Structures are given as C-alpha cells and as structure tokens.
C-alpha cells in the first residue's frame, strides 16, 4: 500500500499544558509523530498551547500554532491552512476531545478534513461508556456489571441493584478525574454529584467494584490491512482500585500462563477490531479475578497514552512514530524495525529483562490532601527502571524516584515499628504513595507473606519478591559486607551501594571501594525488541550485574548529558526540553551524545534523540558506572534541573569534567553565605536576610529583619516548604515542622517585599560575553512562586532605566560567576529599587518559553557555548526584544486534591504552563487564560472579596469590570468600600453569616468570575469560596494584579476576536 498519495498536509493537535494525567508523554509521542510525518514529506500543521514542549519547536512542524486548544481556534487554524487530514490520536484525551467537537460541530466536514487514525465513530464507541459496553457484550466479552446515570435519581436507582461498594466514573475526563470508590451511601451521593459535574457529557458510570482484582494492560497496534500486534503487556502491582497512572506497573505481565495471556490477547484483537480503530495504537485494560481467573474488560483508549509511552520505552518499539506512519497509509510489514533494521515492525516485541515503573507523587506540596490512592490519578511523574529480574528493576526504580530512597527503607525512619497490629494491617490495606515501603516493613516485623497479600491484595508473586529483598537486607545487617560472589548476587538484586552501606554500617563510600576492589561492576545490556535474536543497531542500554557487556563505547568525541529524572512539581518538561536541545545541538556539532535519564515519559529517553541512551537512575553510583565505561570528554549537568546539579560535585571529584559553569560557581550561587558575599562584592542589593541553623536563630533573625519574612530551607527547587510568615507565632509553627523535615539544612529567612514586582531574567554567557535572552515581568506580586506566576515578555510596566539596571546586574553576576551556559536571575522591584532574590547558574524553567518568545534556541546555544563556541560565532550577541508580547500562564492540579485550598504562595504548585502571543498584553493574556483551561467570561457577575491591604487598589479593577458590563457583588466590607467609591455593588453573605451565602451563589452558577484576595493570616475562612469556584470551573483570581490583568484581557476580548498566527510567522519579524 505505502503512503497515501492523496494526503499532502496533516493537522496535529497536541495535549496542551502538563497536568496530572496528561504529561510530557504526549510531547514524546507528538514529537515522534511530527518527525515521522515530516520525513514522509507531508506539510504538518501543529496546534498546541504548551511552549515547554519539543514538539512546538518551530522546526518540528511547518506551521506551529501556540494557541488555546479550543474548537474556535482549531477551526480557524483549519480554515487558514486547509489540511487534508486531522490526526487526533497523539495528543492525549485533550486532542481526542477537541477532534470530537470539530467533527460534531461540522468543522471537519466544512473544510473537507479527514479524521485519520481513528474515525469519529470509533472514538465515540471507545469513549462513550454505554456504547463501549454494548460493543464488548456484542463480541462476547465480560465486563463489570454497571449502569449509566445522568442524574442523582438514576444513580440512586442503580446502586440499589449493584450494592455497595461501587466505583463512580464520570464520562470523558482525563486521567479519571472525578472517578472514585464509594463505600457507603453518604460517600456515594457526594461522589455521584461530583462526577456529574466534572463530566463534560454530564454522565457517570456506576460500576460493580472489582477492587482487589489483578490489573493488566495491553498495548495494541493495528494497520489498514487489519494486521494487529500486541506491543507490550503490563501488569499492575497495585491491584484494581488504584488508577493505573498511580500504580506500580511491571512489563511484561508476570503472573499469567500462556493460556490466560492468549485469551487476553485474543480479546484485545477483537476489541480493537470491533471498536474500529483503523490504524495506530490503543491501550486496553483488563482485570482478572485472582482466584477464579474471570477476566473483565475495563476500558480502551483509542489513542496513544501514558502507557504506550511506557511500553515504547520498555520494549524499544516506537509506538507513536509507527502509529503516525500507519495513519498515513503504511502497513506494519512495510515499516522496518528501527532497532534490528533487517526485520519488519510487524511483529511482537519480546523482552529479556523486567521493567518497573513507579509513580512520583507530590502530596508534600498539598498539605491538606490525604495520601490515599484511588481511581483518580494523583501522581505528577514517574520513573522507570530496567533490570534482569523484577527485584533488580524494582530497586533501581525506587532509587530513580529521587525521594531520598535507595532501596526499601523503613518509611520515615522508624517505619511501622511499635504500631499495633491493626494499624499495620490498615497501612497495607490502604493504597498510598508509601504502600510498598509498608509492605516491606510489615514483612520485616514478621507479618507473613500470606497476610500481606490478603490485606493489600497485591499478588503473592510481588510480595514474595519484596520478601526476598527483605531477607537479603537481614543477611546484610547480620553478616556485614558479603564476599565477592555473594556481593555480585546482592547487587544483581538491585541493592545500591548506599543501601548496602546503610544495612552493613559500612557506608556508601566504603561499599563502593570494596566493590571496585573485588571488581564487582555492572555490565550494560541492550534493549533490542527481540531478546538478542537479531543484531541491534541502536545503543539503548541498561545496567545489570551479569557476565557479558554489550556497551561497546566508541572512540568518538563525546559528551554525556544528565537528564532530570521523574517529573515533579518544580522540575518538569522544561528541563527535558533543555536536555534534548543540548543533545541535538551537540550532535549537529559533530559530537556523539550520551543521554542518561530514567523518566519514560520524556523525549530525551527516545533512543532516536541521542547517539546513545542509558536508561538508568540518576544517582552517583549509577552515573559513575556509565562514566567509567563511556569516558566522555565532558558531562552536562546544568540542563536537567536540580537532579543532575546535585551530582556535579561528586562526579567532578570522581574525575568527570563538568562542562560549562563550574560546580564551584553553582555552589557560590546556591550556598547562602557565599551568595551574600557575592552580592556584596558586586555592590548589588538583596532583601535583608539571614541563615538560621536552629529555631532560636530563626526567631531572633526574623525579629531583627521585621515581619513579614519569607522563609525556606536552602537548596530546594520549586520553593519547597517556602512560606511567607507574618508573625512570631507563625514562625514558631513553621520552624518546628521545617527543621524536622530538613535536619542538616539551614533555613533562609528573608525580608518579604510585599507587593513588589518580580522579574525573571534568562541570559546566556560564553565566559566573555553575556547576552540577555529575555526579561519576564511577573503578573502576580512577589510572594508567589515564579513558577506559578503568570509573566510577560517583554516587561510591560518597567522603565527603561530599570530594565537597563536589570541587564547590567545580570551581566555582572554572570561574569563574576564565570558562567558558561545559561543563567537565570530573579529580581524584585520594590519602591523603584532593584533587589536580587536568587541566581541560578543553570537552565531555568523559563528557557523554552523565552526561546519561543524571542525565536532563539537558547538551550542549543548554551550547549555549544559549553563546548567552547563563542556567542559571536553563533550570531547571538545582543538581546532580542520581540515586537509581539508573550504571556506565560501556569496550570494547577488543585482539582485532583479535594479539600486543598487552591491558593498560590511561595511554594510552587503548578504542573504546567501555556503561552499566549499577541501584539499587546491584554489579548496575549486572554489567550493564555483560555489556554490555561479557564476561559474568561465576557459578561455576568463578578464576586469580589479583598483583604484590607488591597482595598486601595480595587478601584481601577472595579471600574474596568463595570465598564466592560459586569455586575459586581461583594461581601459586606468590600461592598461598602465599593459603594463608597460610587460603584453599584450588591452584598452577599460570607459563609459564616449563613445561607444564602457566596458559596451558594457560586454553586448555583450565578457568578462568572471570582476575585478573592485573602487576609494573610485568615486564608482558611475563604478557602471554601476558592474551592467551590475551582470545582464549578469559575475563573478565580487571588491577587489584585491577576484580576486586573484579567479585566484588561476581557475588555480586549470584547473589542475584537482573536485571530491565529503561527510561531514561524512571528519569528519572521
């Protein structure tokens, strides 16, 4: 068949901002697809609002629209570009939902655009629970008993038949938003209501609970000739009841006989055929009753997914790339297997290792959220590890998580010891982010394997594996360092030097020396899709304690790039973006690049990106083993965020050459005392601050600085545990908590510049010249983490004198630190004076945004600078201030954490970002808001409740809103104030004053927008307002500055409709 010649151009929709349930795996799949489509000579048009993605780099598509993912915008892009086809299956649920809307509202038909990959009928059949159910019954497959409800009455009726517990799943949401288990009637009512609200189609599925059953997934591919292959089977360690994104998962399936596996495989083939996914990948989930083997179908995703990214990395089979080629007409047997080159892609990968994925959670960021897992996904990232046995891959995955875990340590030091038996069993029963550690600890305390299985419903195979690890721990604790042969076996079970050091009391360094002396070293094996049956041509490697090494390092000039590890809040896709850019730039420059990373969602762990890929944990032990084999001439640590940066010192001491800015300069910027000295040397100004090593020092310091103060532990990313403290009482409370959490790390106490304007500056330096990449003025005032604040490039309110000063300071800092590569400096402008807040001599979160705003690939340039190129030879010698205005807005995961106050502060909470570009601020901000999934209203009533300190600044906001035609309603104090200023404003009760109060009003849909700036100390009182606004999807603003920007944006929206413009067009300016 070959490629369809009637297709000339294809429209691809991305997945938008990173959110829980939809992360950078869609950048990986999207980037692969775009590359494949372009290689086919097709004209590719991309729509995606997320600037931090590789796929939105201008060279990956012919036309890149960084615009909101709405039907209106998509229709306009289609109208302008007239693509032949729309490929909707690579941008997650977002793209699929948008494609459905475009098909249903007639856009596709109007412009003659063909849906390729999956038809509307197929998508609906897979996505609509009722239709899916009917389809499954038609082909004779079993499902959990279930009923669809479109109202609470229907739901009540259904549960009478099914009995409790039941699962409530809202239709058509991503990552299972709103899905929940209801054990009793009260829970049931609450969760049905929540589910109905969150479902775009206002329906929920009420389902027989199969909690505790074994859970499996198959990744399936189909081509136009109806060839169907299974790429990978995945078994969830956590049984049914925990969202698969939150489960520890293992590939391939471990506990199925061939007969059972083939029944599942047959079912998967029948499902993809019945649903009618024409081409591409699908993910199908099954549950199996552990005692009877009854198999039921759970669901199908008719698109590439997080699991397919995992399956691609686990097998070496590039699902998205192949899916894109199938969508434009190829058959599987017409495409080669990239790894073996000689055999076709039409086969089923077989693997000779075990892959374990463990999710990374962020409960520490959301203090009021319970660490409990259920059908709604809560993890923010994941780490994957490859080992020759499950035990090895499990322990490697644990230390890849970067949560200070190097094995199955007792949770929180003490673990379950001393707890009553009932409490131990309860910990095993309740799925949580720590459950695996509890399993190990319970076994340590003598709970039997059978009991652990009975309570946790985790399959005995996995529990026994953990028990074997615990057994060896015991042996190490009792007998100390083992002899050579036993040590090799212990290492082969995945034990890290650090963990062995802990258990034997020898310490990591001594274990490492001992191991080296005995020559117990890992070898590297290849991921090759075929269990070594055929020769592999792609060096995609993992370590194992085995006999034969396959690494065969080359003698080329080479550079190693350390990635960022699992995504987390504060360290996400932006850093992977930088690592990928470094690799691409250095390859172009003729170097061999070696990528080390353990995050399966990323573009960097695509074996196509670098010359060599090591899928390994980013710990000193694991990275130095690779260094020893590869001996690169340099290592890049400044692109992957804090993870590789933390290794810089120890790697340098071990003899690695760290490229770019020296580890000492990094330390000078990070170490508070050295940083203070640096600022003094340069005669710059910083907020008064001090370093506190104990509670008393903190209290004394704060008293002398004067409240409010900003406080945080040193050496953190994403403002972890950073808070504004208003008085001594607050400080005392903080200090007791924080000192416990951070032990050896001192606290930083700084004056809080209330109301200051913050500015982020990204620059690049080659050791001689420093060039400003971009200056970003934050929309929200100081006190809100820079990663959470909206920002605008170029700044909109700063005088040219101030801008010049910022530029001068940045250059001084970069020169003094000897920066070679990227530097990010954060400033506050307070009463027209500049203060430097922090300096990061590394790639920052804003690099992709700035690069796209100014049209210069900063990370690429930085990589080249680090190998000795000069900015002058690279043609980047002065700051480029674009004529257009770029706004970055952040996206938050609050809706995933019921009960959490969606309030912004100094600790970062956002998971992703979007970008809006226009020729002035207001429309750019409007685009960013729309893209951030909270479109601004054009009319209706705005609720205002502002703290006293903000009242003086409310006038221009209120007049802006009134002018645009909004009605105002406020709580008593604010209302009185507004009326005194001459505004018409109704009064509504505070919640405490009784119904009907403001929350009732929001709930009844009468409020179009909420402006709520809480008193610093009394934020709890207004939490229900923000929470309700969030749940009802009412846009809300917690700063006057943010609200003001929104008011301007609304006015702009009402003036003219927004037309679309491609990034390539902007960059031509």
């Amino acid at each position: 068949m070959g490629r369809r010649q009637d297709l000339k151009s294809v429209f691809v929709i991305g997945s938008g901002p990173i959110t829980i349930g939809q992360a950078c795996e869609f950048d990986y799949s999207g980037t692969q697809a775009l590359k494949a489509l372009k290689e086919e000579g097709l004209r590719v048009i991309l729509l995606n609002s997320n600037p931090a993605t590789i796929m939105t780099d201008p060279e990956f598509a012919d036309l890149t629209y960084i615009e909101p993912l709405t039907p209106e915008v998509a229709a306009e892009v289609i109208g302008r570009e007239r693509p032949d086809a729309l490929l909707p299956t690579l941008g997650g649920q977002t793209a699929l939902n948008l494609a459905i809307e475009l098909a249903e509202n007639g856009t596709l038909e109007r412009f003659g655009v063909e849906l390729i990959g999956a038809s509307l009928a197929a998508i609906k059949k897979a996505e609509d629970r009722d239709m899916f159910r009917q389809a499954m019954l038609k082909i004779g497959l079993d499902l959990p008993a279930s009923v669809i409800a479109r109202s609470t009455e229907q739901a009540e009726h259904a549960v009478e038949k099914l009995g409790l517990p039941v699962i409530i799943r809202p239709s058509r949401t991503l990552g299972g938003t709103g899905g929940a288990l209801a054990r009793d009637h009260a829970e049931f009512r609450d969760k049905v209501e929540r589910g109905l609200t969150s479902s775009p189609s206002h329906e929920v599925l009420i389902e027989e609970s199969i909690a505790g059953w074994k859970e499996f997934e198959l990744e399936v591919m189909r081509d136009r000739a109806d060839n169907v292959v299974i790429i990978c089977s995945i078994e969830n360690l956590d049984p049914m009841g925990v969202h698969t994104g939150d489960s520890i998962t293992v590939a391939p399936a471990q506990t199925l006989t061939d007969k059972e596996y083939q029944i599942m495989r047959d079912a998967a083939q029948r499902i993809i055929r019945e649903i009618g996914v024409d081409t591409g990948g699908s993910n199908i989930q099954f549950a199996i009753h552990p005692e009877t083997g009854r198999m039921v179908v759970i669901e199908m995703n008719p698109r590439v997914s997080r699991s397919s990214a995992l399956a691609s990395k686990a097998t070496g089979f590039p699902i998205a790339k192949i899916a894109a080629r199938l969508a434009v007409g190829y058959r599987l047997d017409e495409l080669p297997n990239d790894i073996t080159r000689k055999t076709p892609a039409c086969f089923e990968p077989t693997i000779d290792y075990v892959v374990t994925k463990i999710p990374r959670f962020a409960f520490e960021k959301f203090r009021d959220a319970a660490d409990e897992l259920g059908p709604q996904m809560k993890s923010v990232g994941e780490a994957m590890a490859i080992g020759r046995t499950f035990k090895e891959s499990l322990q490697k995955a644990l230390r890849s998580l970067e949560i200070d875990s190097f094995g199955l340590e007792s949770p929180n030091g003490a673990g379950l010891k001393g707890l009553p038996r009932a409490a131990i069993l309860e910990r095993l029963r309740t799925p949580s982010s720590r459950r695996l550690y509890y399993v190990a600890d319970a076994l340590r305390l003598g709970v039997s394997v059978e009991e652990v299985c009975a309570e946790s419903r985790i399959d005995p195979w996995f529990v026994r594996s953990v028990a074997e690890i615990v057994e060896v721990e015991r042996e190490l604790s009792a007998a100390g360092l083992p002899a050579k042969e036993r040590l090799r076996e212990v290492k082969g079970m995945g034990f890290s030097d650090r963990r062995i050091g802990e258990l034997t009391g020898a310490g990591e360094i001594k274990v490492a020396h001992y191991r080296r002396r005995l020559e117990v070293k890992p070898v590297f094996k290849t991921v090759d899709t075929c269990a070594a049956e055929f020769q592999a041509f792609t060096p995609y490697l993992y370590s194992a304690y085995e006999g034969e090494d396959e690494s065969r390092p080359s003698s080329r000039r080479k550079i190693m790039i350390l990635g960022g590890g699992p995504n987390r809040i504060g360290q996400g896709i932006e850093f992977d973006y930088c690592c990928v850019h470094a690799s691409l730039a250095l390859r172009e420059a003729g170097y061999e690049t070696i990528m080390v990373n353990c995050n399966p969602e990323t573009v960097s762990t695509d074996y196509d990106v670098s010359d060599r890929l090591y899928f390994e944990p980013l710990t000193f032990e694991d990275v130095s083993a690779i260094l020893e084999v590869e001996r690169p001439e340099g290592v890049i640590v400044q692109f992957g965020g804090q993870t590789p940066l933390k290794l810089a010192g120890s790697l340098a001491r071990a003899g690695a050459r760290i490229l770019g800015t020296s580890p000492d300069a990094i330390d000078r910027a990070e170490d508070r005392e050295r940083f203070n000295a640096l600022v003094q040397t340069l005669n710059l100004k910083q907020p008064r601050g001090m370093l506190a090593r104990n509670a008393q020092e903190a209290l004394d310091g704060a008293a002398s600085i004067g409240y409010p103060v900003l406080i945080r532990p040193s050496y953190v990313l994403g403002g972890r545990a950073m808070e504004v403290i208003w008085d001594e009482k607050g400080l005392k409370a903080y200090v007791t908590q924080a000192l416990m959490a951070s032990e050896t790390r001192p606290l930083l106490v700084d004056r809080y510049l209330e109301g200051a304007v913050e500015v982020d500056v990204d620059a690049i330096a080659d050791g001689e010249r420093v060039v400003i990449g971009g200056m970003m003025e934050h929309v929200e005032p100081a006190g809100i983490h820079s990663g959470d604040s909206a920002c605008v490039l170029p700044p909109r309110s700063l005088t040219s004198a101030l801008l010049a000063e910022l530029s001068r300071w940045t250059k001084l800092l970069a020169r003094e630190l000897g920066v070679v590569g990227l530097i990010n400096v954060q400033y506050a402008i307070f009463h027209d004076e500049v203060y430097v807040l922090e300096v990061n001599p590394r790639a920052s979160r804003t690099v992709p945004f700035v690069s796209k705003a100014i049209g210069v690939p900063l990370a690429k340039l930085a990589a080249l600078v680090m190998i000795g190129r000069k900015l002058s030879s690279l043609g980047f010698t002065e700051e480029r201030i674009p004529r257009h205005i770029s706004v970055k807005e952040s996206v938050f995961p609050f809706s995933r954490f019921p009960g959490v106050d969606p309030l912004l502060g100094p600790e970062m909470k956002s998971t992703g970002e979007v970008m809006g570009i226009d020729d002035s601020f207001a429309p750019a901000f409007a685009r960013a808001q729309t893209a951030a999934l909270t479109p601004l209203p054009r009319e209706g009533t705005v609720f205002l409740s502002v703290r006293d300190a903000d009242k003086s600044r409310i006038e221009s906001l209120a007049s802006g809103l009134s002018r645009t035609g909004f009605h105002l309603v406020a709580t008593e104090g604010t209302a009185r104030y507004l009326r005194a200023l001459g505004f018409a404003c109704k009064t509504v009760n505070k919640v405490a004053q009784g119904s009907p109060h403001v929350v009732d009003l929001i709930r009844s849909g009468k409020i179009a927008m909420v402006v709520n700036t809480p008193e610093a100390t009394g934020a709890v009182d207004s939490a229900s307002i923000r929470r309700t606004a969030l749940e009802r999807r009412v846009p809300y603003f917690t700063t006057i500055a943010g609200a003001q920007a929104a008011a301007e944006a609304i006015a702009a929206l009402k003036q003219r409709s927004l037309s679309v413009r491609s990034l390539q067009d902007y960059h031509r300016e």
Partner: protein
Amino acid sequence: MKDGARTKRAMLALADGRVFTGYAFGAVGEAVGEMVFNTAMTGYQEVLTDPSYCGQLVCMTYPEIGNVGVNEDDAESARIYVEGLIVKECWRAPSNWRSRMSLDEYLERSNVVGIEGIDTRALVRHIREHGAQQGVVSSIDLDPVSLVAKAKAAPSIVGCDLVRRVTCEAAYDWELGEWELAGGFKRVSPEEMRNRPRVIAIDYGIKRNILRRLTAAGFRVRVVPAFATAQEILAQGPDAIFLSNGPGDPEAVDYARDAVAALLGKRPIFGICLGHQILALALGGKTYKLAFGHHGANHPVLDLKTGRVEITSQNHGFAADEASLRGLAELSHVNLNDRTIEGLRGLGSPFFTVQYHPEASPGPHDADYLFRRFYRLTELFARYGAQALERLQSEQ
C-alpha cells in the same frame, strides 16, 4: 523464601568451549543436547512438554521463569521432553490460580536438569553468532574441561532420527476439544464424534493442542505411530490425514517420507512443522539446517495470497529449501524476518502445510483458521476430489 535454592552449583558447557556457571534446580544430574533458545515470554510448561524439543537443551530468554508454576492442563504431552532447562531465575513459589506445583518440583519429579543464574542473554548472543551446537548441563560434573569434551563428543542432531524416540507406541483416539477459562477442555460425546469426518494424525511427536484444535474444528481424530505405512493408514478409511510436528532432522525420518509420498493426492493432507518438512521431502524437495532455528512466539509470517501477516509460534531448527520445491508446490507463506519458507500448497494435490505452529500453545492464535480451512478442504474433497484445493482457494 527460596528453600534450598541456589546452593548447588551447576555448569553449562558448549561444544565450542564456552562455559557458563550457575546454580542447579530441578533434578541433580547431567543432560546433553543441542543448545537452543526460545524467545516466548509465556508458556514455559508447554515448551518443556513439546516433544519437538527432544534432544535439545532449551534456554528461555525471558529471565523470570516459573512464576506461574505448572498445572495439568498446560502440558503438551505426557512428559517433559526438553533435555535440560537454562534460565536466568527460577521461581520456586509460583503464583497463579491454576498452579498445582512449582517448576522446580516438576523438573525434579521428571528427572530433568535445570540451571539458573545464567547470563542467558550472553548465551543467546553466543548461539546467534556461533550457531546452534551441542551442549551439556551438569550439576554432578563441574569440571569445564571435561564438560566441554562431553559436549564435543555428543552426536549432532543432523541425521539423527529423534521421531522414533517420541512417537506413540500404538494408535489411539482423541476426544478433547478447546480449553476454556471456566471448565477446562471440552469433551466431545461419542455420539457427536460418530458423525464427524475422520482424520488420521501421524504422530511424529504431536502436541496435544494440535489434537484439540483438530477436534474443535470438527474432526474425529485418531492418532497413529510415525511408523504407520500408507497402506495401514488408508486401511482405516480416513477422510483426511494430518502430519504432526516433531523433533530433529526430517531427512532422518525416511519411513515417514515414504508413507507421505504414497498418501499424496489420495486424501487431503495438512502438515505442521516436521510434518511440513516431511511432506516437502516426499514431494522431492530438500531441507536444510538453520543457523539457530526459530523458537518463539512472535515471528511474523506473511500470507502471500491475502497479504495479511500472522504473528506465529515457531519451533524448528530445519527448513524446507525453496529452490528445491519450485514446480513441486506453491509457496503460500513466508517468514518476514528472514524470508524462509513458512507454508506450501499443493499444485493439483489437495494438501497445505505450514512450518509454524497454528495450534500455538504457547503463542498467539492468529493462524488458528488453518484448522477450519483443513476441515473445509476435507468437506470439499469428499465432493470434488482432486479439485478440492482449487475450490477452497476460490472460496477464500
């Protein structure tokens, strides 16, 4: 946890001098055979009990083996035929609702030697580069020099008639059909059997699942020993003849070749694996030994007529030679990995054969339609005789 595990050393030596050390499991002892590897991730019990593995040491490339234990239903024959099993890690404590025994115990009871703790990937790469060869696994002799000498001395599988070691002693009838999750194998009643067309399956080392699939397709199955002559077979009045899988070199089984040659054209014939090779020889074609064979469950096979690809289960060390068969049979299927012959169809004679295993077990069921096709061919043969295959082709 692993009672008595990994205490006894064992060694694997290959004829070319490569030696691997590991730990013993299963029976204590020594085994000699041709060293092959199987890349299927499930189905080690089916592999162990497949008579086609007679004379071979098998290395499973998937590293965790024994996870699901063993059970009665998953045996492909009455006993283990693999001479010795080589794995990375053997699980003593299985977890599966159907498991009745651990792999370790199964091997021990069957007096089969196992070795674990082997860098199986290194072993596979070695075989890939240096070809299949004789090997010895031992937990009683741990002297590498002596073991290599034994491996060198072991007779090659080429020219060796292994069929006589695995075929049944006397003919028997088969009455079990397909397997279901609930209820196991379906038993066909004698009354129902009576009206079915009768297939004689020649047992060169037949797997039970072939018998089940033939039964499920609608046949009444009678199994006869490999030595049965054409005359003896025809005397039983069969409606169709099936040539089974089996171990070793097809050229060594001349009695089987002669019988098939005499049966060609007289009844519809379907052959699998060794049966396919024997039929190729009976037509006057040639067979040859592959470097390291095909043993796995993921081999893509192209149906040259439909253009569809089947993912197939494979287990063979020899293959039919394409050039030698030109004009004698039509090539129907080809392996997409290495373009070797995967299927033949008669030119005027009502037969078709495949090199791979449509009965799967272990492996995918993609090619199961061949059993129904065979049944249809048998029906058409009853009506149209020699034209049956042509009719069948036009129906597809």
